[in-house]
């Protein structure tokens, strides 16, 4: 049988395979590089970075729930300068694409980070307008189509790299959001970010998280994510990157069949630190089993 081709292209950037890491679950690759060969995965998406260091939320920041987890880290990050000085040089040593997730409180914050990254070794920018755990910025831009359009336009005007808008599932109609991003010039969209949730500790009679609410991730959210990826992929022409509870190659293929051009693994890294590499192997096995020579043939075939 002929060689299989797992390459995918997002906004002109070729990935050796469609498996990425979901922002916030993989640091900047350094920690999980002890478990997986970063050269084997399509792209590393770094944890959200802002113009200045952010302290994040008080603890407890994480709680387990059935089939998933809640987090309210609050986008703690060391600031873009540390990312450029420490993390990007580390990632440059690997043959993988580098996607930097960008967060901010104001439009100016986002633009500042994007401009700072202009000449850095970064392949793609993922603009986080969907984190449910910070009070200002972030999700405020991601829940109204007009606001999303404006921030996308402002960032796109200054970005040297292609931009991926990361969408929130905490909206009434995901297609409106995807269309707004596309209309404003986004090169791709990624979805879903976490779904806002809550857990109450019945013994202490208080919230499990100090932030009261947190973002739900893990296998529990996968059907919601598949549905939204399917809807978004049918609403826009730009590539859709799918994520939300991906635990196996079977899950990844489900997203691809629904219309995702690439996928990202998030909370499951915590359950099994080898997940990303295992999914790459599993996708190849699936392609061989069904005689698929080019992965792109699978994207969105379930109509």
């Amino acid at each position, binding site marked *: 049988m002929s060689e299989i081709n797992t390459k995918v292209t997002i906004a002109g950037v070729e990935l050796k395979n469609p498996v990425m890491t979901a922002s916030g*679950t993989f640091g900047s690759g350094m920690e999980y590089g002890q478990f997986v060969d970063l050269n084997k995965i399509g792209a590393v998406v770094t944890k959200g970075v802002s113009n200045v260091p952010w302290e994040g939320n008080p603890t*407890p920041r994480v709680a387990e729930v059935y089939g998933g987890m809640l987090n309210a880290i609050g986008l*703690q990050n060391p600031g873009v300068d540390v990312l450029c000085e420490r993390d990007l040089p580390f990632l440059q040593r690997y043959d993988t694409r580098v996607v930097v997730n960008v967060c901010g409180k104001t439009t100016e914050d986002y633009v500042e980070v994007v401009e700072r990254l202009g000449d850095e070794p970064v392949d793609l920018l993922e603009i986080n307008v969907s984190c449910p755990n910070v009070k200002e910025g972030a999700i405020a831009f991601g829940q109204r189509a007009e606001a999303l359009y404006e921030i996308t336009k402002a960032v796109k005007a200054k970005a040297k790299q292609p931009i991926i808008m990361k969408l929130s599932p905490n909206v009434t109609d995901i297609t409106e959001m995807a269309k707004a991003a596309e209309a404003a010039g986004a090169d791709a969209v990624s979805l879903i970010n976490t779904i806002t949730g809550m857990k109450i500790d019945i013994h202490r009679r208080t919230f499990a998280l100090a932030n009261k609410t947190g973002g739900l991730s893990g296998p529990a959210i996968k059907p919601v994510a598949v549905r939204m990826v399917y809807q978004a992929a049918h609403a826009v022409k730009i590539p859709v990157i799918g994520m939300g509870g991906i635990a196996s190659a079977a899950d990844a293929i489900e997203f691809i069949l629904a219309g995702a051009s690439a996928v990202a693994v998030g909370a499951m890294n915590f359950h099994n630190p080898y997940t990303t590499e295992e999914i790459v192997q599993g996708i190849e096995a699936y392609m061989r089993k069904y005689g698929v020579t080019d992965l792109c043939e699978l994207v969105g075939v379930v109509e």
Partner: protein
Amino acid sequence: MRKEMAVILSQTKIASGIYSMWIKTELAKEAGAGQFIAVYTKSDAMLLPRPISICEVDKAGGAIRIVYRIAGAGTAEFSGYTEGDTVSILGILGNGYDIDGISGGGNPSEKALILGGGIGIPPMLELVKEWTAINRECYSVLGYRDELFLDKEFEAYGSVYIATEDGSAGTKGNVLDAVRENHLRADVIFACGPMPMLRAVKQYSEQEGIRAYISLEERMACGVGACLGCVCKTTKKDSHSNVNNARICTDGPVFLAEEVDI
């Protein structure tokens, strides 16, 4: 550091809701006092591994002992395992007590005050073993609500003092009440236990001018320093985070008390 399948060598209930388990694992070679492993349940519904401190290490035999309390469905599942069962673990995690570094070049008569409270007692057993193995002395002060466990095992490594909340054994009160009642003096303090106890130990160490190393606990997700779920406040800017937060899983769980703001 890796995830691997370990085999249960033995499991015993040592007090109500408290279990002692020996597991066979190659990771034992890398393990030391104050470090921990993350233990996975067999249910996919429970995504996150449970961080459990290492109670004893048998490097020659390639085995680790954990002593844990049933705190929920995950630890309840672990308590049902018997000899020969397998369990998936991630380790060895965290920075433990750097015995050589702490005692290095110091006075060989240096004496340690070892304070353990509740389920913070188990990691102190490996610590007293390692501390006395380099010919240093220690007092162990163990605090319980009521029912005692592991206390007899500490006796092989020096004098042991007990504190109980209900006064049923030893000093009525907490570990510091026992320290004061018995006029215990030492050159260095090691402590693990609930946060109110650690706050009191930090304050005591500052008042007395004694270095204290404390082991912190927090809800964890990744266990390897990537997710920033389990942070604690630090008194100075942390070099990794660039803010006043350190990761308990990788920068700790053992910290010099003066470096953390608890």
